[in-house]
């Protein structure tokens, strides 16, 4: 385990990790220093994101650095301090030119962590990044099944604080989000695996730990296999974040694996696993949420299956 991962573990397994993450400069890893981030590579950022999933931490890490931070930095805009979030504005949202600025009107749906974000960065109409303070918008709270904020944000003629041509279109931002959630999924799968293995070693029935039964061992091996394959695939995609095939396949596979991983972890845990008091929910509820966000396995299968040309050339990138 590297130093970054160890630091992340110490902070993320604590009770209120976000202030500590910010203090340690870990909220904007992967965002260039000259833009106001902490520097480091996307792989470094992935180590942190994966750790947040593995330790079941409830933090807007993907949104602050991976999405908003990188988006703003790539657009040449300064990256503000504090938690951030990002969204793509579709038909229900528009940014209209007004003198030397932009005026924002309309609704953004299921914006992660909007209620507590210091700023939201929106890719408007696939062309312009606009930055605004969500406090100036009407926020209708919503959440995913893990209880993480997924809010509706409505602007009614709010002037953007900053704006610049966007380095990515809406599909590009979705790809960034998909890769982030894929990384988080691999962390959560590993967290679920760790708990299931531990429980199988502790829980005794018929006079021995249930992990001694081959039926349970076979399930745990499948869970480990899904987690490991998803993990190495996502790591490969993090090395090629602009490769649509890599990101689509890594997210589709991680989303698919998430369902199987959650099902096995619950089956191994028996009834105690489906209670609010048990820690397994920190992983499985997120697995069921994140597998859908920024495109589920079917969405990304359509992207891959719709590509022209021989599938083998697509798979090998040549």
């Amino acid at each position, binding site marked *: 385990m590297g130093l970054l991962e160890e630091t992340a573990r110490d902070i993320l397994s604590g009770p209120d990790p976000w202030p500590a993450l910010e203090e340690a400069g870990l909220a904007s890893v992967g965002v260039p220093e000259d833009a106001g981030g902490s520097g480091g590579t996307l792989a470094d950022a992935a180590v942190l994101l994966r750790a947040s999933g593995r330790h079941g931490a409830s933090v807007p890490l993907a949104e602050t650095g991976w999405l908003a931070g990188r988006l703003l930095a790539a657009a040449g805009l300064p990256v503000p301090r504090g938690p951030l979030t990002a969204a793509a504005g579709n038909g229900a949202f528009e940014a209209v030119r007004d003198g030397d600025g932009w005026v924002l009107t309309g609704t953004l749906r299921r914006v992660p962590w909007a209620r507590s974000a210091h700023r939201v960065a929106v890719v408007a109409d696939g062309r312009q990044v606009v930055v605004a303070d969500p406090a100036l918008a009407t926020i209708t709270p919503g959440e995913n099944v893990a209880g993480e904020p997924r809010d509706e944000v409505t602007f009614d003629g709010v002037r953007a604080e900053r704006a610049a041509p966007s380095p990515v279109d809406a599909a590009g931002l979705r790809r960034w989000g998909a890769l982030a959630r894929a990384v988080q999924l691999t962390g959560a799968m*590993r967290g679920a695996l760790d708990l299931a*293995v531990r429980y*199988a*070693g502790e829980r005794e029935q018929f006079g021995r*730990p249930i*992990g*001694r039964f*081959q039926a*349970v*061992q*076979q399930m*745990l*091996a*499948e869970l*480990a*296999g*899904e*987690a*490991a*394959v*998803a*993990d*190495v*695939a996502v*790591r*490969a995609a993090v*090395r090629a974040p602009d490769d649509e*095939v*890599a990101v*689509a*396949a*890594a997210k*589709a*596979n991680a989303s*698919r694996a998430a369902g199987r991983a959650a099902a096995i972890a619950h089956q191994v845990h028996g009834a105690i696993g489906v209670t609010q008091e048990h820690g397994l929910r920190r992983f499985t509820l997120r697995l069921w949420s994140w597998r859908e966000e920024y495109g589920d*396995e*079917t969405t*990304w*299968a*359509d*992207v*891959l*299956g*719709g590509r*022209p040309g*021989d*599938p*083998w050339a*697509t*798979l*090998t990138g*040549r």
Partner: protein
Amino acid sequence: MANLSELEPGTLPPEAGALRDEVREFLAGASFTPRCDSWLTGADPAFSRALGERGWLGMTLPERYGGHGRSPLERFVVIEELLAAGAPVGAHWIADRQTGPSILANGTEEQKRRFLPAIARGECFFGIGMSEPDSGSDLASVRTRAERADGGWTLRGTKVWTSGAHLAHAILVLARSEPLDAGDRHAGLSQFIVALPDERVAIRPIRGLSGEHHFNEVVFDGTFVPDAMVLGRPGDGWRQVTAELAYERSGPERLLSTFMLIRLLHGRAADTADPAARRTVGRLMARLWALRQASLAVAGALAAGGTPDVPAALVKDLGTRFENEVVDAVREHAGVEPDPGSPDPLARALAQAVVQAPGFTLRGGTNEILRGIVARGLGVR
């Protein structure tokens, strides 16, 4: 556990792209009928020799033994291209994949000079002499016996499921050379190279579900093996076969046995503009992309001198189940019945795949055994 979760992605060397193009160019000009599971059921000695001429057999063997001193990842590129194309690679598959490396690791100078250049030319095929009628998953229970004879050993016993023994120039046999020690079942086993043909070796077909011949029963009835043909150290056979099995697991042949179906369904979906079929193709491509990354990562770890036995086991478990998943997924959209004699390539490929599919999760260690290895890696067993 560390090696389970921290598998680094494999990186193909820069020259891999040009190599891939060369193989594709060769395949475009080669004459063969693509088939599913071609590494087991597609034997064509002339095709093997042609690969040998191109330098694509024995790639990782040193040049002084007729090999090509290429990296395992370059070999990965070549074999995945051949498999994806459904090329007839069955004749040389075992020799190239495992016997060559095993002889290089354990053999005498004389054995290396005799066998390795011939393997690299595609002129020496090997059979695997491991499984027996009463020894499958429990390989240490083999009962083929090797007894001391003047200047060598005498073998008695029966091996089964020996793919391509009827085409092979030699077979590498695991036999018990010392009495069973109940306290250490892995001790007292040795490996012997038996050159074929031999009048005291009987090779009989074990026909597959549709009557096809690739498996054999091989009976050793007092077969003499000179000392010079013992592979490695007598008594060290268990360690040697375990290492040999590492080459058998997690290669691209554990993912691609039914790839042809994906390619054919992709073509059909494009012709008919069928969105449901396209979605299925995309779903399978996503899974295959991920599994290929895992296979590549294990190959990279092996190339770096690691022993990723647990990751290799889990890749083979997930990979071979994927090969089966492909069959059912493609059936949903194919609109044709599996038909071995059909002029329609998809109907033909389905017929091959359906019949071969049960073997995917059996050969090279059943998936239940593999999951047992993973469970041990997790510490629950």
